[in-house]
């Protein structure tokens, strides 16, 4: 198999000087507490994501992985440190880093098509009506939602809702896709199907993806690297795991690969070890 696929945090610190696509440098996040002190959520995070890379953030609940994603999205500000995308500092939310939300965040008064259309209208202001319409249709077709295009969110299943969320995110052609436990609220069967669909789409149009998850199998199946975070408060990057399997990936073949279990056990051991620390 490949040599040393298990990197430690130290080697991560010594990454090449060439600027990455997304760079997070010495990032910390703390909330002030009532009694004048502060509650540190994230401590000294350093991470680089390359342009065509699928990176997962994994850790126990409350470890601040969603907070990190929100800081990259611009929905929250870091207390210190720097986040840059293509060398430009991220200060506020922007459609170049589109988000797929855990609870879909579809607007219930708009149909499936109108939800995607709203994003397209808002971001691609210069496109003609015909261009926008075809962009919307193209992305609805990509996630097999054309038959449900005129339905309202409360008329479709959770899996379909998240497909709308994904179509909405991809339709505005973001530079980077941020996914906050995108499959977390789905049942196991739907989750597997949707993971496959998203991976298909990504393998056809590679781009930078940062995905928060708490599912080791999901992270191994989908991503190129898995960033494992220690428990909060003051969560750090504990370890970064390279997933060396070539794309396109096949879940069944992956399961028969002994190296898969090696990585899986390593990740689970990491999580177990950091679970014990708090309990």
């Amino acid at each position, binding site marked *: 198999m490949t040599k040393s696929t298990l990197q430690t945090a130290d080697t991560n610190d010594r990454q090449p000087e060439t600027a990455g696509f997304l760079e997070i440098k010495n990032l910390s996040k703390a909330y002030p507490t009532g009694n004048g002190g502060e509650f540190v959520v994230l401590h000294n995070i350093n991470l680089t994501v390359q342009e065509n890379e699928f990176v997962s953030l994994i850790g126990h609940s409350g470890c601040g992985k969603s907070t990190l994603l929100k800081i990259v*999205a*611009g*929905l929250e500000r870091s207390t210190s440190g720097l986040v840059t995308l293509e060398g430009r500092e991220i200060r*506020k*939310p*922007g*459609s170049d*880093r*589109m*988000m797929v*939300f855990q*609870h879909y*965040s579809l*607007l*219930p*008064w*708009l*149909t499936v*098509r*109108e939800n*995607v*259309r*709203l*994003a397209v209208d*808002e*971001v691609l202001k210069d496109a003609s009506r015909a261009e926008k*319409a075809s962009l*919307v*249709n193209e992305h609805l077709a990509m996630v097999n939602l054309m038959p449900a*295009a*005129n339905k*309202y969110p409360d008329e479709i299943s959770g899996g379909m809702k998240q497909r709308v969320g994904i179509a909405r995110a991809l339709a*505005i052609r973001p530079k980077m896709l941020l996914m906050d436990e995108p499959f977390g609220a789905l049942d196991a069967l739907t989750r597997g199907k949707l993971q496959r669909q998203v991976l298909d789409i990504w393998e056809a149009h590679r781009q930078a993806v940062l995905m928060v998850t708490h599912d080791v199998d999901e992270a191994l199946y989908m991503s190129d690297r898995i960033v494992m975070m220690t428990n909060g408060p003051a969560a750090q990057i504990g370890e970064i795991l390279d997933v060396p399997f070539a794309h396109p990936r096949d879940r069944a073949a992956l399961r028969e690969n002994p190296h898969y279990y090696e990585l899986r056990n390593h990740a689970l051991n990491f999580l177990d070890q950091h679970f014990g620390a708090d309990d």
Partner: protein
Amino acid sequence: MVQLSIMALFVALSQATWKRTKLVLLRDTVLYPALGFLGILLLWYGIASLRHELMPYPHEAVINNLDFITHPFYQGGAGDLGIGWLLLASLRRVLLGFLLGAVVAIPLGFLIGMYRPALLALNPIIQILKPVSPLAWLPIALAIFNLAEPSAIFVIFITSLWSTIINTALGVSSVSKDYLDVARVLEMPSWRQVYKIILPASLPYIFTGLRISLGIAWLVIVAVEMLTGGVGIGFFVWDEWSRLNLSSVFLAVFVIGITGLLLDVAIAQLEALITHRRTPKEG
């Protein structure tokens, strides 16, 4: 064993119920309401038989009112109008006052819901004025306008404000952060967020406020017209009472009730039309 037999009983019962669903529906939507009306009629008969010099029997009331019922849009010169005209005059006042109220209340609700200093400044005023009977504004309105018609509309306007302001503000301030996050990620300017996200998200609250306001406005107009006189269903009630014509008062009560119900249904329909099932547009 006991549990088992109870289970079996339940199953049998539920199967039987399933077969009788249609009958049950008929019973619940037709039979019981009809029994309610029958009870009221019996009560009416009972009271009328005790004080017949004052109260007509129900069938007498219908016969006495036959002229009103069959000619709702009769026009016999000034002050001699069919009940349909009176109703329309009252509806016109209510709708005018209500619309003016909504035009003022909805933006005010937005301001209070979105801007905390506005909440702090206006909330005490609203809390003090809200429990005041709208009729207390009538003398003030009469002093200002010196005319019955604009005074009545003004009272309805005041009546329509409070529930709409409070519900709009509640709706605006409780818009899900998820929706706003979507807007922020899409870099939607804040003025567009107001009408593309906050307005549609708070429409159900706004409509709740409007529904309550319209309901109270319809209650109040009858009392206002009793005091101001002129053409209207409220004055009709007072006028017929002065003539000791209780049959017509009963007719008016019935008409006012049905109209109030229809107003409520209408605004609920409007809400369903606007908030959720708009005709899908071509994308």
